[in-house]
C-alpha cells in the first residue's frame, strides 16, 4: 500500500528540496525514462510531458503531512517548493530502498533549471526517433521557447550523462 507515494517522498528527500511544480514533474519523468521505478503515467501536454497522476499523488502527500509545500510570490509568477517533513521521512522508510544510483541522478537533475529540464524531458519523450527528428518535434511543440542549438547539444549531453549515472 502507498508504495508509489513512498517513492516520491524518497525522491524529494534525496533532493533535499525541489523548487517548482514543473521541475518536479520533469525530474520524475526523466528518472522514469532512466529506468527508475516510477509508475506515474505521463502524456504530452502543450508544455511537455506531464502527469496528472503525479500531481494528484503530490497533493495527497501534502494532505498526509509528508510533504511541505510552500508558495512564494516571485512578482511575475508564483513558485512552489517541496520539502519532506519529519513524518514524511519516517514514511519514506516504509518503502523499498531505492537504487544507489538514484541519489546522484537526482542531484544532477536538481542542479538544472526547469526550462532546461523541460527541454530534456521533451527530447526524451521523442527518444524513439532519430536525433534530427527529435529536435524537429521539440521545435514544433515548443516553438515559443526558441531553444538554441547550443541548448539542444547541452540537453543531449545531459541525457548521456544521466544514462551513465543511472547505470553506475
Amino acid at each position, binding site marked *: *500500500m*502507498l508504495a508509489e507515494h513512498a517513492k516520491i517522498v524518497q525522491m524529494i528527500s534525496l533532493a533535499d528540496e525541489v523548487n*517548482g*511544480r*514543473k521541475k*518536479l*514533474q520533469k525530474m520524475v519523468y526523466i528518472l522514469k525514462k532512466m529506468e527508475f521505478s516510477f*509508475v506515474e*503515467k505521463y*502524456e*504530452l*501536454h*502543450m*508544455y*511537455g510531458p*506531464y502527469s*496528472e497522476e503525479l*500531481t*494528484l499523488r503530490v*497533493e*495527497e502527500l501534502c*494532505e*498526509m*503531512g509528508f510533504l511541505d509545500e510552500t508558495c512564494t510570490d*516571485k512578482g*511575475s*509568477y*508564483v*513558485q*512552489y517548493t517541496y520539502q519532506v517533513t519529519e513524518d514524511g521521512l519516517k*514514511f519514506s522508510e*516504509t518503502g523499498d530502498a531505492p537504487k544507489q544510483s538514484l541519489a546522484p541522478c537526482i542531484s544532477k537533475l536538481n542542479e538544472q533549471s526547469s526550462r532546461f529540464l523541460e527541454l530534456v524531458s521533451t527530447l526524451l519523450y*521523442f527518444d524513439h526517433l532519430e536525433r534530427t527528428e527529435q529536435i524537429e*518535434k521539440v521545435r*514544433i*511543440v515548443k516553438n515559443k521557447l526558441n531553444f538554441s542549438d547550443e541548448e539542444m547539444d547541452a540537453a543531449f549531453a545531459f541525457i548521456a550523462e544521466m544514462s551513465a549515472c543511472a547505470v553506475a
Partner: protein
Amino acid sequence: MSYEHEKLAEEKVFKDPVHRYIHVRDRVIWDVIGTREFQRLRRIRQLGTTYLVFHGAEHSRFQHSLGVYEIVRRIIDSGFGGRPEWNEDERLVALCAALLHDLGHGPFSHAFEKVFDLDHEKFTQAILLGDTEVNAVLSRVSPEFPQRVADVVGKTYKDKLVISLISSQIDADRMDYLQRDAYYTGVQYGHFDMERILRVMRPAEEQVVIKSSGMHAVEDYIMSRYQMYWQVYFHPVSRSAEVILIKILHRAKALYKDGYRFLQDPVPFRSFFDKTITIEDYISLDEGVLFTYFQLWMKEQDPILSDLCRRFINRKLFQYAEFDPAKEYRKIGQLDSLFKEAGIDPEYYLVTDSSSDLPYDFYRPGEENERVPIYLQLPNGELSELSRSSDIVDAISGKRRTDHKIYFPEDILEAGQEDNPLYKEILQLVRG
C-alpha cells in the same frame, strides 16, 4: 480526381442518437471506417466498467469516434470554411485525426494501460504508421499523410489549430463524449447547447476561440463536464469494478511470471506479460477476448484469480469506504497488517483509490498546470481568457476536487466475522 478529393457518388449517413446523422462524402473517410482496425473499436466500450452501474452505458469507441468526426466536419464545413485563418488543405487531415484519435485504445482502456504500462496514444500512432489496413488507406492520399494524421494525434502537428479541434479544453472529443455518455447512461447532466458553441467557434492562429457572445454556452459546457466527472466517470461502484479488473490482470500476470500452469494457455496475453507486444497482438485483443478469459479463469485452481474473476463477471464488487489521507493514512498500514494476519492478501483485496478533476484551468506563469485556456474573441478582435469574463468559470478555475476511497471485500469479512475476530476488527477499522 485525386483520391484525397474523391467524393462518394452518394452521401452515406450513419443514424446516430446524439447527432441524428453522421454524414460521409469523402471516399477516404468511408474507406477508413471499413478497415479492420477501425471496426475493432466496435468491440471496445467507451466507458469501460461503467455499464455495471449505468446499464445503458454499453456504447463503443466506434460510435464516439464517428461522433468526434461529425463534430469536426460540422465545425470545418459550416463554421471555418472560407475564413482566412483556416487552411482548407488541413480539412482531410483534421477529419481523419478526429475519426482515428482513439484507434489505439485497448480493452477497458485505462485499467489495461495501467497494468501493462501502455499508452493508447502511442499505439494509435503505431497503428497509423504500421503495416495496417488503415495505413494503406491513408497512404493512398500521399506517402506522408499517415504521419500527418499521427502528428495531430500525438499533438506535434505544425498547425496547432488542427490539434486544438481534437485536443483542448473545448474540443470535439469532449463535446461528443459528454453528450454521448450522458445519453447512454441516462443521466441529465452532460447536456449543453453544442449547436450554439459550434456557431460561435472561430479559427485563430494557434487554436479555436469562442466569439464572446457565446460565453454562456461555454459556461454550460464546463459545468456539464464537471457534473459528468463526479456523477458518472468517478462513480465509486464503477471504480470498484475497475479496481477488480486491474487486480485480475495483475494476478494473471504474476501467476504467468511464476510459471503457473493455466488450464487454458493465455495465448493472447503472453506478449503483454512478456512486454513483447506487436501491433498485431494489440489489434487482436478486444473486450470479447478478455471476457472469455475471465470466464475461463473463474475455473482456475488459483483461489485469488478465480475469486476476482467471479466477482467481476457476477458483479460481486468490493465495498468502499471514505478515506481522508490527511487524518487516516496510518489506517492503511494497520489494515495492511490485519489483512495479512487474517490470511487475506492485501495486495489484491485492499485498495486505496483516488479520483481527481480540475474542471477548467488556465496557464499561470511559474505553475505547471499544462492547460491551454479557452479564449473569448471580443468584438474588437482581441482575445480574453474565459475566466476573466465569466464569474462562474472564475469560481471553479484551478479548483481541483479530489476524492479518496478504500475498497475491500466486505462480503468475505461479514460472512466470516463470527468465526474470525480479526475480520470483525478489520470491519470496525475500515468503517471508522
